């Protein structure tokens, strides 16, 4: 009994002692997680100054980041935050900086250029943002200048929109069992191609809305065993598809089956789903200056221009890549993490896997857009 009491007193005393030591002399990483200071270092070099800025952005310490800028008199803190996050709701609105990379480009005794690559953690995955910062020496320390992106100013105007909108009235709950209901849109898979990749089987294809009404669509695929035609796995296209198809619109889709080998697969059962939904034909997005860039770093780049007067909060660009014979080679996508303002081009860059890039001859790009309070593809 006495020994137990002695042990309790000993443990209690040790705990109090450790808390006191941790409070008075905290470790560096603990101080960061407690939200004070971060991994800030002396800004004795241009890279260190930019690294400090990156650390402050990672901590969402906007005021400290703004205060440390050499050119802060040229803009307000609010404009600095808008430049980072955007003026209108978009993917970055609810994102945080996950990590950053710093790369020196040029340096002299008084100024330098450093590339800062910020990786935003958004709900649909990482969204990198690369900025080249000029860093100037003030006394003994270096201070970065923030390169504000010029936002084109649109003159106030009224843009009349008279595109179609479809509304649906479904059968009532009290209707007889034989009562007529609206027909689901007719969709058709016009192309399908399975390939084996390092991480498993990938099924890609294209889906056409062959009806005269809008369709909310998705595609499921079931792999059937070569031995006995039993199901191996069933997966869906998830977000690798444009979920809203207007009449005669085509979307690519891609379905991943991790850890499955194509040699095990005897056949594939494809199941497209469609339902009739209310939709609008607006906004129209033009894809300009598309370029198919060869390896290394193969990609398709271009610009999205919102031709309507409506602000598009999130744009999802899906690229379909074909070989010289017109066969489907790959489907890739990218979310644009900036809102699409009317008539304002926004760049996109869809990466193509290096091993497939040499096969790609042509491509087709579609854009799905999401507007606050609604969506359309």
């Amino acid at each position, binding site marked *: 009994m006495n020994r137990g009491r002695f042990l309790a007193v000993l443990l209690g005393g040790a705990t109090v002692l450790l808390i006191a030591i941790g409070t008075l002399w905290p470790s560096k990483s603990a101080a960061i997680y407690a939200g004070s200071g971060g991994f800030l270092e002396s800004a004795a070099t241009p890279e260190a100054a930019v690294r400090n800025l990156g650390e402050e952005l990672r901590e969402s310490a906007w005021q400290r980041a703004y205060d440390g800028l050499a050119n802060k008199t040229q803009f307000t803190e609010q404009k600095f935050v808008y430049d980072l996050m955007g003026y209108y709701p978009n993917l970055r609105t609810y994102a945080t900086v996950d990590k950053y990379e710093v790369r020196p480009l040029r340096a002299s005794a008084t100024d330098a250029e450093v590339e800062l690559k910020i990786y935003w953690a958004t709900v649909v995955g990482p969204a990198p943002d690369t900025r080249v910062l000029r860093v100037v020496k003030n006394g003994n320390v270096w201070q970065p200048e923030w390169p504000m992106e010029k936002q084109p100013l649109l003159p106030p105007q009224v843009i009349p929109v*008279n*595109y*179609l909108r*479809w509304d649906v009235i479904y059968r009532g709950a009290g209707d*007889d*069992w*034989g009562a*007529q*209901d*609206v*027909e689901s849109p007719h969709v058709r898979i*016009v192309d399908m191609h399975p390939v084996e990749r390092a991480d498993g089987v990938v099924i890609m294809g294209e889906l*056409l809305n*062959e*009806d*005269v*009404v*809008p369709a909310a669509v998705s595609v499921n695929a079931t792999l059937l065993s070569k031995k006995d035609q039993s199901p191996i796995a069933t997966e869906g296209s998830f977000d690798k598809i444009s979920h809203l198809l*207007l*009449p*005669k*619109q*085509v979307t690519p889709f891609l379905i991943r089956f991790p850890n499955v080998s194509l040699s095990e697969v005897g056949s594939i059962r494809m199941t497209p789903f469609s339902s009739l939904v209310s939709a609008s*034909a607006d906004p*129209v*997005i*033009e*894809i*300009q*200056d*598309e*370029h*198919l860039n060869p390896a290394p770093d193969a990609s398709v780049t*271009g610009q999205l221009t919102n*031709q309507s007067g409506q602000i598009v909060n999130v744009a999802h660009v899906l690229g379909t890549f074909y070989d010289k014979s017109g066969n489907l080679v790959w489907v890739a996508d990218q979310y644009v993490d900036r809102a699409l303002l009317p008539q304002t081009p926004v760049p996109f860059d869809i990466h193509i896997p290096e091993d497939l890039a040499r096969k790609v001859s042509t*491509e*087709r*790009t*579609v*854009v799905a857009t999401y507007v606050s309070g609604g969506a359309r593809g």
Partner: protein
Amino acid sequence: MRAVCACLIGWGMLAAPFAVAQGGSLTLPRTVEAGSAFSVPSSGSGKATLYIVGLGQVLKRDVEMGQAISFPLGTLYSAGHYITVLVKDSSPAESGSFDVIPAAKPADVTFLARPSRLPVGLHGGITGAGYVFDTYRNLITAPTQVTFELSSPKGANQTRTVETRYGAAWTEMDSTPQQGTDKFVARVGDVSSMRIIGQVPGDPCSLKMSARPAGEQIQVQTEPVRDCSGNAVPDGTIVTFTETYDGGESTVDVPLKRGIAEVKMPARPGAKLSVASGVVLGNEIRWEK
């Protein structure tokens, strides 16, 4: 309910040996038309209780043996096989059975027509199935003539007459070459049920566009887009314009508006402009200005 039925059926099986000993009996009809009035003559004397049990209904009547037992209109309305149990002095006295059959006169036809929307000119694309019921929603299983009629606003009619088998009749119809809202009617005698079939244009046919300069851009515009039967393709249908130039491409998906699709694209000398809608390709233009 189920327990009562089981109990009465059990009683009925026990009753047969006692029927003669008790000296009373019922003369049951072989069949009764659903909802009709009928009577059951009885012999013997004294009071008894009559139970009539079917899958949809259970009746209990206090009866005076030796008199006819009357059932007014609408008493038994659910078609099926019924058993009767006569209980006298708290003991099952007699059991029997009869059938309630659907009324001969159709009162309703439930009509399933599919699809409610389809492209024009589709052979056998429309199906209709009719189920014939009497006033009390009993399926009339006796063969009955059902007439299916599909009529378009322009007066084109297709008519088929089909006899029901086990209460159902079905048919196939072709969609007409003209778009519009057709009426699809299933008729049995003076009873009918109507469905609306939307016949919509098919894929665009011979998609053609033209291009003209518009400042520093090119204005591209389709001719009114029609299907191969000459129907105007509905507004909202997506038309894809593609401009291919040296090392680059611009595409835009434009919905049809008032029958045509138009858009402004960057003017690049030597660019090739093409147009498509769904799987249908249109003409190409080379822009030389």
